[in-house]
């Protein structure tokens, strides 16, 4: 019992930053993100026996968070112990909205209209920076299935952008300033 608690605490310290980032990137509001984070770690505690060690723990938690997000609805996911403090901390992550600028806004809209599975694949690559094997673990798919689906997802996104005739003056406008190479 004490061991399990120490184990969750260690995993929490290791993964909290990644799981909060995952939730904030996908939820419209800080409150929703806080819900997803809380429920994800609550599930980790309930299923502590299944929680893998090391790097695998992060991937396992991404998988859980993804299901929580899919099932998310306020009445069930909200936990009693959640605090307004946590909401406020999550809100800090929402300071700089990526959707500023007309072009990015239009692209974001097209991105949101993609099928859920496409969006998640593209996001795991571009936002969580996972490789195919890691994505396969998160989604419970084979590596080959990930490769094929990712290819299709990229193609669909590219086509949707082309169809919407979204223009950007230059690629670099889309890259956040601090990431410019």
């Amino acid at each position: 019992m004490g061991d399990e608690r120490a184990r969750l605490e260690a995993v929490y310290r290791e993964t909290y930053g990644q799981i909060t980032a995952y939730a904030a990137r996908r939820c419209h509001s800080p409150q929703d993100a806080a819900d997803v984070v809380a429920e994800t770690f609550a599930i980790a505690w309930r299923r502590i026996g299944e929680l893998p060690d090391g790097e695998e723990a992060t991937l396992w938690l991404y998988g859980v968070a993804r299901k929580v997000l899919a099932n998310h609805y306020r009445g069930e996911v909200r936990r009693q112990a959640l605090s307004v403090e946590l909401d406020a901390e999550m809100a800090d992550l929402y300071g700089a909205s990526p959707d500023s600028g007309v072009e990015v806004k239009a692209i974001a809209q097209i991105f949101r209209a993609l099928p859920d599975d496409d969006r998640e694949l593209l996001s795991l690559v571009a936002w969580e920076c996972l490789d195919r094997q890691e994505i396969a673990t998160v989604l419970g798919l084979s590596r080959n299935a990930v490769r094929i689906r990712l290819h299709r997802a990229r193609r669909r996104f590219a086509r949707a952008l082309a169809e919407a005739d979204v223009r950007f003056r230059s690629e670099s406008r889309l890259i956040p300033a601090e990431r410019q190479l």
Partner: protein
Amino acid sequence: MKNIDDIDEITRALARVEPGALGGRPSDAGARTLLASITAEEPGPPVAHPPRRHRPRRLVLGLAGAALLAVGIVMAQSLVQSGVSPSYAVTKDPDGVVYVKVRDFHDAAGLTKQLAELNVPAIVDYAPPGKWCKEPRGTYVEDIPRGLYSVPENIPGEETSRGWQMRINTKLFKPGQTFVWTIGEEGTTTILMNDPVAPCVLVPDESHKVKEEKPDYLTATKKGHSLAGFRVDEKTVGEVLPELRKRGLKVTYLIMGIPEGNPGGFGELRTQTAPVGDDWIVWEAEESIRKPGVIRLLVTDKRYDKNPVYGGPRDNVIKE
């Protein structure tokens, strides 16, 4: 058509938290409170398994989902009809703190009216299955005052219903802010927005739908599975392990909790990889979907009069 690098670069630009960067810090107050509240409870148990019935597995899953939904809805309706509880209740104490309980998701108009009478700036909309209000309806308030609201939580004593309650301190609303609730069987969101908030225009939207979770484990001893042809039920762990080894399978143990009188069905006490006694009893073996090659043995430390997994002999349920 853009190439792959472009697509990934475009996707990266959409990230709210910079790609690869970390979000919150586990040392922050809210994060620490959350961890403490999670580990304040016992880990493991609250999973309960009713005994398995004689039906194809897929069907059981489908029905289980549907039944669960029906129970939630039926319960809400019967509460309303019997007059035990109204579909919603709003009370305000002298400090300006409002308590809201919502049990029926349909009466958005009634709730809106009552909130308005108590000077809570709120908009409530009902979203029928498969629809949701078109977003965005307004901008989100980012600095939410401490103590403005408690998070929605279960109504004590009605944990199995889908109703929820929350506390709102109306004195902490700033002018020009509105609480926006969208409620439906498929989901409820509560978001604090800046005025003006656009009225709800219902559009087809499946993203709030409760998706059926796929199981993480399947019965391993059935045809076509990793222990096909080898029965484990009612054997001892010592009798089962050699076969698992022979087939090159790894083992974990689900320690079952058996309710008083062994009526059929069991709880999960814990899952462990540490060995259990060779004389423990195995009631079924399951294979992990996520990790092929891992078997989970459902075990108890002593023999019971009948198989708790099936509420009797396995043969009564699985015939193949």
